[in-house]
């Protein structure tokens, strides 16, 4: 068990290293020269050369990568070209905002998805099951651009009951903050609902058809007790893994939602960095997203093993 976690962390670190190389070289292959991008097309070549020297962008790529990654590991994420201030604090603040939004989406979607899936499974083949499945599948495939736009129109403009900007006035209470986050959280919730619902449904259907469920029924357990004690415990296990792997999709959705609803999270930060060619910010932001994803899947794997005593991991596939 301990070895399994250790091996998972080791593999995760290797993956992160590859990711850091990919991210770094992807943003250095760029056609634009960072110094030129900052100073604009009219700046004198000597000024551009001086700034390149100051930024370190005149050195060989390998050396630049080494400087970047060794600083990154010690928590120094570089200086943002655009804000002219350290990337670290900006990123941390934005990540906090994003986590607040993501947490709200999770709090909404996890219970809804699980209840939806279990209800569908208990009514397999009936109209309710069909309605839930069709809704779940549709919600999952529709881009956040679409759901977000429709939500803005319906709740923000026509009914005028919810704010269409997620940015709350400074010094707002948690209640006001959440009020501003409801609308942006819904597109994320819709995307995730289908996955969780399908997973919970499949797990519950399988558990309901199992031998132990039949035994429990035959020995005279009331249906409610049988479902609670025997079915749900087994069926919700795979759902945990799915929920964790969805963090990746969730972060992808954050970029869009944060831009659409004007919210200062990590998605919007990366979007701005990419638009303004703010490479230190872009590289750090993307790598942080990779780290968040790896940590989330690691936690899911560990949770799964801890909760499922039947599994003894010998190797990692």
């Amino acid at each position, binding site marked *: 068990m301990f070895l399994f976690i250790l091996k998972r962390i080791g*593999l995760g670190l*290797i*993956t*992160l290293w*590859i*990711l850091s190389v*990919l*991210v770094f070289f*992807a*943003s250095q*292959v*760029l*056609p634009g020269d960072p110094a030129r991008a900052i100073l604009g097309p009219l700046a004198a070549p000597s000024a551009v050369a001086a700034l390149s020297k100051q930024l370190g962008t005149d050195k060989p790529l390998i050396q630049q990568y080494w400087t970047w990654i060794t600083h990154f590991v010690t928590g120094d994420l570089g200086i943002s070209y655009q804000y002219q201030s350290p990337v670290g604090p900006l990123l941390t603040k934005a990540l906090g905002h994003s986590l607040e939004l993501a947490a709200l989406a999770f709090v909404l979607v996890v219970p809804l998805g699980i209840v939806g899936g279990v209800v569908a499974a208990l009514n397999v083949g009936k109209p309710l099951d069909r309605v839930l499945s069709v809704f779940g*599948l*549709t919600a999952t*495939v*529709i*881009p*956040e*651009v*679409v759901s977000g*736009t*429709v939500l*803005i*129109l319906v709740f*923000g*403009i*026509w009914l005028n009951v919810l704010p*269409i900007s997620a940015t709350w006035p400074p010094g707002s209470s948690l209640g006001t903050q959440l009020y501003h986050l409801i609308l942006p959280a819904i597109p994320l919730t819709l995307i995730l609902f289908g996955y969780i619902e399908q997973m919970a449904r499949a797990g519950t259907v399988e558990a309901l058809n199992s031998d132990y469920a039949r035994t429990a029924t035959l020995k005279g357990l009331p249906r409610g007790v049988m479902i609670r004690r025997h079915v749900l415990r087994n069926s919700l296990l795979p759902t945990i893994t799915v929920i964790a792997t969805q963090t*990746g*999709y969730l*972060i*992808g*959705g954050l*970029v*869009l939602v944060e*831009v*659409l609803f004007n919210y200062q999270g990590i998605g919007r930060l*990366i*979007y701005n960095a*990419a*638009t303004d*060619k703010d490479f230190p910010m*872009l590289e750090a932001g*993307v790598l942080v*997203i*990779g780290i968040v*994803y*790896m940590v989330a899947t690691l936690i899911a794997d560990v949770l799964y093993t801890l909760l499922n005593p039947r599994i003894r991991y010998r190797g990692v596939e």
Partner: protein
Amino acid sequence: MSIGAVPVESTAALNSAQAEVRRREFLRELTRQKAFIAGAIIVGFWILAAIFGTLVVQDPLAQNLSAINQAPSGAHLFGTDQLGRDVLARVIVGARPVLIVAPLATLIGTVFGTALGLVMGYYRGVVDDVVGRFVEAFLALPLVVTGILGVVALGSSNATLIIVIGIVFTPLIARTVRAAVLVERDLDYVAAARLRGESSLYIMFAEILPNILAPIMVEFTVRLGYAVFTIITLSFLGFGLQPPTPNWGSEIFTNISEVGAGYWWEVLFDAIAVASLVVGVNLIANSIETALDAS
């Protein structure tokens, strides 16, 4: 679907006869499904719109500054935008770039992903481990973020979009193909081919590949839906399809700031168009999966 017991020399003949029967069975299962018919009608409509749209509607680029932000009416069924352009025309014509870029990108991803998956699954060992790490690294990033990074690195154009989405899909499809190859490689027909002295390349592409076409086809249609999703999202963010040709993502981005003034028609019809295409593609993908399971 093992054909392991068949004498080696007759596999080819039997294979094609069997394949013909299975194909017919698959098509019958597929066309029997209402979801497939619905999906085919929706996607078919947008394909027609992409090809012939310009012939039917008004000029999507023609500005009329004396008729800006007009609500839907007889003259402009979907209203006009902030430059007085006909929204209906722009929605119909907007189908074209998506329907060119999405299938091409998915095709690239499928071709390379299949080749990579075959190599990974067939050789396993070091190749599999090394490539597997790269796949993992790619998967740690959301599609949209990788897309943004790729477009920033290569510059924005429709060709970039095709390449970037193709590259991102490659490891995803490789993973599915690899899993399918792992099942096939231990079957008797592969061992038979090896004993005949066939080259690895021949075994991978001529023996194993025909037997894993079903999961690859499912993967292609599912990915096609994701491709549309990603293209629209990236276009909305300004990293995707480029103006002046109208496209649904940029249309929503340009006009969303106008909805506060009540000009809902400038974004709603584009949103509906996106939703219908994505749902249509996914209906087809689901139907293919069901039909393959049934046949």
